[in-house]
Every structure is written in C-alpha cells, then in structure tokens.
C-alpha cells in the first residue's frame, strides 16, 4: 500500500514535471518570436551628429516597449551612405537597422553611385525629425537688412557675393542655386566641411552670406548674425518675423528628415513591432527635449508614409538637381 502510493506519487510527479516542461517549452516556442536578442541600430554619422543623438535618445525610450535593448553602432562616412549600404545588405530579420536622414538615400545617391538601390533596398520603419529650418544669414553689420535688399545687391554685382555652405548638394546649397536660377544671379559658392566652419567663415567676414545648417540659431540670438530667409515649410516659432523661401516666391523648402530603416523584406510582424516600439520612443519627453535642443521639428511618419515620402523626394530632387545643373543624370538607379 505504502509502496503503491509512493509509485503513484512518483508517476504523478513525473507526469506533472513533464507537463510543466512541455508548457514551458511551448511557451518558449511562443516567445521565440521577435525580438530574441538586442537590435543593432547603425548610425550613418559620427558620434555627436544629429542622427546619432536622436538615435540614442530614441532607442532609450523604445527599449522599454520592445523588451530588448538597442545597440548603437556608429558607421560614419559617405554622408551616411556607407551605413546605408551595410544595412541594405544585412539579413532582413529586424536585428540590423540604420539611422540616417533621407538625404543619404536620395540626394547623395543622385550625385554619387552607391551600391544599394535607394527605393528598393530598404524597409522604411519610422521618420521622426525634420531638420528643415536651415536659413540664409548675413553678419549683423552687413548693409542688407532684408532678403530683398540682399537679392538686389547680388543682381547688380554679379560674381561679387560669396556664400558659404556645409557642402555641395546639401539643401543649403540647393536653396541658393534655386534663388540664383530664378533671379538670374551669379554668386560664388564656397563649400565648407560642416555647418560650424561655414558659420565661422561668415563671422570672420571671409564670405558675405552663409546658407547655414541647423545650429546657427544661438548666433542670431546673440546678435552676431541676421536671418534673411528661412528654408522651412513654415516660419520658425523662435523667429516669427523671418519669411520662408516659399513665402518669398521660391519653390523650395529644405526637406531633410531623420529616419530609421531596415533592410528590404522585413517580415510584417517584425516591422509592426519595431514601428510600435520606435513610435513609443519618439513620444518620450527625453526625446522631445533632445529634438527641441537640436532645433529639430517633430515629424511623425510610419512605414508606409515614409516610403511614399522617399519616392516623392526622389522624383522632386532628381528634377531639381538636373534643372540646376548639379547633375546631368542620376548616378544611381533608384530601383
């Protein structure tokens, strides 16, 4: 009797254990869906760039939602195209993503041949910030008080006005060429490496104007430079008196949008989880504050919307570049 009880008990225990094991195994299988391990975000610029700071802050908030951590890797170079090429060739399992602005997928590939197909190699996931409020600035002691005065001077003195930008083919360069084209102005472009040296050149009086990248705002507030025109779609809340190029009658706004993408062919459920997690990351106060401090505007585009945006931007930019003579043919085929 005693013995049979014991046997029965052990059988029962074994059965219970096996069932428990089975359940945990099944549960294990059920949990084997994405993500099993940390997700890597390759940032297309060196540490400290807007892409980098936004990606790091965004990841910190998205981790809570995703349940796994994000690893940030910096792979600067080729204005973001090196990282883009790397991720374009990565396995589309959702564990390798890239953080770059749309410029790395559209503008740069239009000018230089890249190894990926800009509109085919990626699964757009989320676009979170726009860096559109670049601007035309002059020194505060310059004779031109308004955009109009500046343009009139430039028209009367062909080849005299020199302007600095952070590089060829940047939105800031295109903006100046769009103006020149419409007004028939001849002015001299002096490209610098980055927005800071371009602004410095203006402060030192080595150029007459600067088509400045994000980061000039403190100088305006400090009263060392004057803003003549804003490149954004709308006026900047901090500088409500400065007109946009659109208002001034030019068909141009700076369309630089920071985004996160994966390789083409991400499974729909993986894409959904990533999109949800990253959207949560955008909504944190930390991210909003970083955005504000970097003078970025919040943008909220999901996967489908951003895909459409990229297609539109490609067509528009290709046309713009050809008209302005920056390129003759697109250097890369989009698909």
């Amino acid at each position, binding site marked *: 009797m005693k013995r049979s009880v014991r046997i029965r008990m052990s059988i029962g225990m074994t059965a219970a254990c096996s069932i428990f094991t089975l359940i945990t195994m099944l549960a294990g299988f059920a949990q084997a869906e994405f993500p099993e391990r940390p997700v890597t975000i390759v940032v297309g610029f060196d540490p400290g760039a807007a892409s980098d700071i936004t990606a790091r802050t965004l990841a910190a908030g998205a981790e809570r939602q995703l349940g796994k951590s994000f690893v940030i890797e910096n792979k600067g170079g080729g204005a973001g195209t090196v990282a883009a090429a790397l991720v374009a060739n990565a396995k589309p399992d959702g564990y390798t993503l890239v953080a770059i602005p749309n410029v790395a997928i559209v503008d740069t590939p239009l000018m230089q041949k890249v190894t990926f197909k800009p509109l085919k190699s990626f699964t757009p996931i989320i676009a979170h910030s726009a860096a559109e409020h670049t601007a035309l600035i002059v020194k505060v002691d310059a004779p031109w008080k308004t955009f109009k005065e500046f343009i009139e001077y430039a028209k009367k003195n062909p080849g005299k006005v020199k302007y600095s930008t952070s590089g060829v083919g940047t939105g800031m360069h295109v903006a100046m060429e769009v103006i020149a084209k419409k007004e028939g102005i001849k002015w*001299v472009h002096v490209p610098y490496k980055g927005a800071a040296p371009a602004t410095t050149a203006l402060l030192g009086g080595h150029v007459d104007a600067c088509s400045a990248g994000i980061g000039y705002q*403190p100088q305006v507030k400090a009263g060392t430079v004057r803003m003549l025109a804003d490149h954004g779609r709308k006026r900047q809340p901090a500088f409500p008196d400065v007109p946009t190029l659109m208002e001034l009658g030019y068909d141009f706004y700076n369309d630089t949008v920071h985004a996160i993408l994966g390789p083409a062919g991400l499974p729909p459920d993986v894409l959904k989880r990533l999109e949800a997690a990253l959207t949560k990351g955008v909504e944190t106060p930390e991210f909003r504050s970083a955005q504000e*401090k970097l003078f970025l505007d919040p943008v909220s585009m999901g996967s489908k919307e951003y895909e459409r945006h990229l297609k539109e931007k490609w067509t528009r930019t290709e046309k713009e570049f050809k008209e302005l003579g920056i390129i003759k043919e697109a250097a890369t085929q989009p698909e």
Partner: protein
Amino acid sequence: METLQSLWYGFSIALQPENLFFCFVGSVLGTLVGVLPGIGPVGAIAILLPITFKLSTTGAIIMLAGLYYGAMYGGSTTSILVNIPGEAAAVVTCMDGYQMALKGRAGPALGMAAFGSFIAGTLGIVGLMLFARPLSQFALKFGPHEYFSLIILGLTFVTYLSHGSMVKAVMMCFFGLMLSNVGLDPITSSPRITFGILELFDGIGIAPVAMGLFGVGEVLVNLEKTISTQIVKTKIRNLFPSKLDWFQSRWALVRGTLIGFFLGILPGGGPVLASFLSYGVEKRFSKEPEKFGTGAIEGVAAPESANNAAASSSFIPLLTLGIPPNVSLSILFGAFLIHGITPGPFLLKDHPDVFWGVLSSMYVGNVMLLVLNLPLIPMWVQVLKVPDRFLYPLILLFCLIGAYSMNNSVFDVYIMIIFGIIGYLFRKFQYEGAPLVLAFVLGPLLDLNLRQALLVSEGSFLDFFTRPISAVTLGLALLLLLTSVFPFVMKRVQKYREATEDEQV
C-alpha cells in the same frame, strides 16, 4: 581682482563633492581612452553623452571636458612604451619617446610627458581665463588664405621631422599629401583615387595609418632580431625625470605651451598640428639637432606640452564665440545645447556658474590627472619587462582591436595591415613615417583652404601676399625653408668643389 573672485566662485562649484566626482570620472576615462589605441576622445565623449542627460549641466560638462583633456595625457603612454600613438596628437611623441624607452628611459619619458602635460594644461587654462575674449576675435581673422599659409608653414617643418635624408623626408611628405587626397573632393564632392570602393569615399583614416606605420611596422622589424638584443636586457633606470632632464626641457616646455596655446584657438588647427610644430621648433632651436630622434627628452616635452595647451585653449572659441573648433568640442557643444545652454558671447553673463565651474574644474582635473598618472609610471614601465614573445602579439592584438573599434570596420583593419607592411619596408629602407603623417594630416586642410581661398579671391594668388597674417606666415615659411636647405646645399657645393679640386690636382 574680479577674475580672482570669479575663480574663487568657480572653485566653490568645482569642489562640490558631486562635481569633484564627475571630474574624476572624466579624467580617468579620458586617460583610459588616450591609452587605448583606436578609440579616441571623440568616440568616448559621444558614447557618454546620453548618460549625461540626467546630470546637472555643470556636472555633465565637467565630466565630458575631463575626458577630452584627459585623453591628451593618456595618448603618450603607448607612444613611449610600444611606439603606437594612442591618438593622432601623440604621433610625434613616438619619435623620441620610444627611443628613450629603448634606452631604458621609459620612466623619465613618461614622467616628462605627465609633468609637461600638467604644466602646459594648467598654463593653458590661465591663458584661457585671462585672454579668452581678445583671442577669440583674433581666431576669426583666420580665413582660407591665412590657413593655407599656416599649413604651408607647417609643411616646411617636415625637414625637421626627419633624422636622415632630407630628400627622403620630402618624398614622404608628398606621398602623405597624395594619400590624403583619397576620397571625395571637398569642393565638388567628386570621388578621387577611390577605385570605386565605397569605404574609400571618406578617405583613409589617420588612426589605422599611424598604428600601421608605427606600431605594426615596429613589431615586424623586431621579428627579425634575435631575442638577446631586447629591451628586457636594458636595465630600466630611474623612474622620473632627473634634474638634467628638467634643465634640458625647460625651454621646450615653454615654447611647446605657447605654440599649443595659439594653435589650439584656431578652428581646425588643434592639438595635432601643435604637437608637430612644437617638435620642429625645438629641433630648429636646439644646439644639438642631431640628438632628436634618438631619444631627446625635449622631443617628448615639446609635443606633450603643446597638445595639452592646445586642448585647454580650444575651449576659447567654444566658450566665447559658440564655435566648436574641432570634432570633440562639437559634441561638447551639443551637450551644452541639450542642457539648454548656448555657449557663446552670453555664456559668461547668463550662466556664470557653468562658465566658472567648468573652468575651475579644469585646474582640478589637471591636478587629478597628474596625481593619477605619476603612480602609474612604475606600473607602465613593467610592461617593458614582458618578454617580446608575449608583448608583440599583444601589441598586434591591441592594434587590430583599436583599428576595428574606430568605425566597426574590417576595412580599417586592412588599411592598418597594409600600412604595417609599408611601415616595415620604410624602416628597412630608412624612410621615416612622421613626415608622411604630418602631410597626411595637413593635406585635406591644404586642399580645402587653397581652393576656398581661390574661390574667395576670384582665382587670384595675389591675396596670399597682400593679407598681412598670410604674408607674414608665408615669409616665415620661406625663411625656414631657406635656412634648412642652405646648409644642405652648401655641403653639396663643398663636396663638389673638393671633388673638382681633386681632379685638378
């Protein structure tokens, strides 16, 4: 008087336990980052940046600034011990520092590097405190023309960076300039010498080149030697600089500090150029220039004081104009912005606590770094006692990891290996790496500024000679070139005369 009061106020902030802690963490991490080849202050500051979001503004900036100048201390360690520059500003320190180590004088070299760094760093802060405003205006006067002339002056120093043949040094210089042209053209953005390789579009990185030429090259050359002639056998003498060392280095320290301080203010110039130029100047002024490259202590004191003074003074444009002069400080600029403070003309007025707190913390940080680094010297010297069969594979391993970790790029590792082989061949045929590295660093600046200058002056070269700063700099370059070429030519002429006289006889 007012300055003293402000400084007192600054110390009251910097010495708060919390800020003291951040200063310590920053300095320690900076030293570490400097010692490890590959990862430099730029990467480290960026990685730490998100962590500082939660800290107080002053605390955050104190820590990140500590990391930046701390890296200048650490950079010399591997240069001296194993001939691998820990970061670009420490390339010159290899030349005499490593030779000193080979002679068993690693201790004094490390000690002089630490003291030199401390003295120059501290004097740099004094300068920053007293002359920040007028000097920042001076820095703005430097446009493309002035930079171009300054770089030309820098390149004439190439002849001083070489121990042997001047012709070979000039060859190396041009090779360096060629290499620096790989990548996208800075004006038109069209690719040059890239062979369609995507990784080359951004050019070749300085770190893999320097680690390859110096570190890997050194290891390969040593593989040829038999075990018996190793450093192990050299008795490691005193651990700290002697009275004689101090006496010999006194002017090198002063001149290095001055050169570093002025070049540090200029956007784009920075610690690297300062370290090279100060070395050249020392050799020029030295009564025994032939001593350089064989383990002269001045050759360590000058560049090490220069790069630290430059690190201090590079804060001037950032704090007074709101212009970051180099990449590390760009990230620091970002850190300021994220904390809601805009560095620039109004910083001192609107946030005196941050301004003076950070400034005072730099004094504290430099003392900490000295206290931290001196006891480490006996430990570092022990590294040289590691038998070569363990040390060399370890050096190779660290170089490989360092090259990879910069950009997580295998391509950089290949670059380093290729330059390791080139470095080996250089040594076999007695070419020197330093002129190449100097030209390589200055090449992109030369290219960009020359073409910007020509755009600004509408194609006229005349402006180089009519702008005062540019003209004086070019004149100085010409003078230097003549005085260094003259003896060389005279020697040849002498030889030729003797030869013809012999024939006549």
